[in-house]
């Protein structure tokens, strides 16, 4: 579904997957925010499940990614503003925010900026600060396709992700690699890899945002994650008083164990709102 979003870069057309159903903004809303070098398609199983179980679902392609046209935005803060503008465009007053990796920082910042609009915060494959090595940033500047391969190899912890994502027969390493390559190639005037990873690396407002978050928060971490190591999420978990769920996956939690992630997100969304996290 296409939306006209008044974001930080001006009005632009944005695409958001709505879970295979027409968006009904009167239903409890849940928003899935993808990470660096991804698009909405990393969320489609979860998004379909929630859309067919009583929720209004938005899984946007962030600006400059996939079907959302325009240049990529260059800070977590700017993308968080854009995300809130997307909610306005979709007629969604409040929502549960689920973000992965870079998307988790965007969800956190949005929850800090508009705490009254965010009723649940679920951060998947996250860490704070989300520091990126100088070597990877340098590789991303010099040879972004090599950098994509490097990140891809580290992101998926198994050679046999079962039952695979979005269905049997998908080679997770291949699908993730070609998605990132396509997104990179689609940006003729920007180095998307470098932009996205700098967005992660430069974000400094995490603890301040966490202090403003008022909703129950859950962190879903991959025990074998080599991109956002679980131990690097502990300060954030403490600041958010978050419930922490650890799954037997790498960084690609959505594709390596979609059923376990669904269970974790369902549980997080179903938690009573008055119950403080932790």
């Amino acid at each position, binding site marked *: 579904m296409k939306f006209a979003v008044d974001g930080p870069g001006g009005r632009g057309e944005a695409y958001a*997957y709505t879970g*295979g159903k027409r968006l009904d903004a009167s239903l409890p809303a849940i928003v899935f925010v993808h990470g660096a070098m991804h*698009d*909405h*398609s990393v969320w*489609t*199983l979860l998004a*379909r*499940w929630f859309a*067919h179980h009583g929720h209004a679902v938005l899984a946007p392609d962030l600006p400059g990614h*996939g*079907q959302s046209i325009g240049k990529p935005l260059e800070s977590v803060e700017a993308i968080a503003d854009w995300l809130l503008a997307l909610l306005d465009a979709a007629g969604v007053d409040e929502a549960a925010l689920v973000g992965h990796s870079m998307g988790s920082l965007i969800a956190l910042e949005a929850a800090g900026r508009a705490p009254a609009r965010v009723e649940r915060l679920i951060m998947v494959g996250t860490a704070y600060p989300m520091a990126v090595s100088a070597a990877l940033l340098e590789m991303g500047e010099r040879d972004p396709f090599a950098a994509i*391969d490097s990140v891809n*190899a*580290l992101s998926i912890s*198994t*050679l*046999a992700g*079962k*039952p*695979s*994502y*979005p*269905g*049997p*027969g*998908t*080679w997770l*390493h*291949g*699908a993730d690699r*070609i*998605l990132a*390559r*396509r997104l990179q190639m689609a940006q003729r005037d920007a180095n998307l890899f470098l932009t996205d990873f700098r967005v992660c690396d430069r974000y400094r407002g995490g603890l301040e945002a966490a202090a403003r978050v008022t909703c129950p928060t859950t962190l879903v971490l991959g025990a074998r994650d080599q991109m956002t190591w679980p131990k690097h999420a502990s300060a954030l978990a403490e600041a958010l008083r978050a419930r922490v769920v650890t799954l037997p996956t790498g960084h690609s939690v959505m594709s390596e164990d*979609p*059923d376990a992630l*669904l269970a974790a997100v369902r549980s997080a969304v179903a938690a009573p709102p008055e119950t403080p996290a932790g």
Partner: protein
Amino acid sequence: MPGYANPGFDTLALHAGAAPDPATGARATPIHLTTSFVFESSEHAASLFNMERSGHVYSRISNPTNAVLEERVAALEGGAGSIATASGQAALHLAIATIAGAGSHVVASSALYGGSHNLLHYTLSRFGISTSFVKPGDFAAWRAAIRPETKLLFGETLGNPGLDVLDIPTVAAIAHENDLPLLVDSTFTTPWLMKPFEHGADLLYHSATKFLSGHGTVIGGVLVDSGRFDWNAATARSGRFTELTRPYEGFHDMVFSDESTVGAFLLRARREGLRDFGASMSPHTAWLILQGIETLPLRMARHVENARKVVAFLAGHDGVASVGYPELESHPDHALAQRLLPRGCGSVFSFGLRGSREQGRAFIEALKLFSHLANVGDCRSLVIHPASTTHFRMDDAALARAGIGPGTIRLSIGLEDPDDLLDDLKRALKVAAKA
């Protein structure tokens, strides 16, 4: 640099898609011979049917053993995923039927396996899908044959049986200039000799019956998607691929390109093609092909090594008029083969006997190690006379267009001791000369 996070070809051939069985600890991939899979609850069942969860429902659509094979072949090819099918022919049909229907058009190389030619020229035309055949190296002809209703370009990595080398980079560029995908039959080369996706192909398939299985035991196919073709962009510009980019009433009004940016083609191929055409692979077959793939790198190296010895022998024999192997400078695609196939040109090739049809027959009947049959890519050496078997439906003109003469003999070189193969050929050539 290969390592656990980024494994090399030989490692993927053994491990991709497979892990110790979580229920039993079995290290080898189990054969899941079951038609169907128990649902945990009604809600679980509904969510599987509605693609809200990933999992297996019914073995015509997917099966855990087949899924290991599918992931492994996709890994070896550098693809996003694949679908195991009942045969290579089923894979070709599935590839075409997923994006083409009545009124659609295909542009194909004229240097094709006879079965593929039959499907395109005779059978699919009965269902309203027409094909224009062009010489694989005639790029102007590829361009000229493309119509608004064309849905894909198609050729074989090594054309059967003349071993025309498909210039994949050039044909892929022609396809992409016209918002079309390039499909290739990669059976003769296997990913060990060439990965067509690295050269620009978008879709490929194997007759897994041949080198992937390698033992002449089972019939099977695998259709692989690179995930690279942008169906949305191509539809926006050409209006061609609404099968993948508009709601499909036959499956929950799903827009496949929205569900999966890189897997739209395979989603429809599985959710419609396997569901409705039903040309699925038996899990037992999948397991046997997996056994074959585990040794694919070792076997392909030996196939090529043996083939080179046989080619050298035949090229120097007085009873042989010609040998059509792209590693020979005499082959018209020699330079292209050097570029695209540096590891070798496989072990299937043809040669022309001097003499009459009778002498050709005498040659084949005198062979003892070479089996006279209609297959290639077996661990055993094979021989056939294309004009009277695989391509018998073609008239002489069509045969000539496919690069086949009435005296052409096709060999598939196996893994025997090469000296024994040379001895068998030497003796049969002597018999033919006296016939």
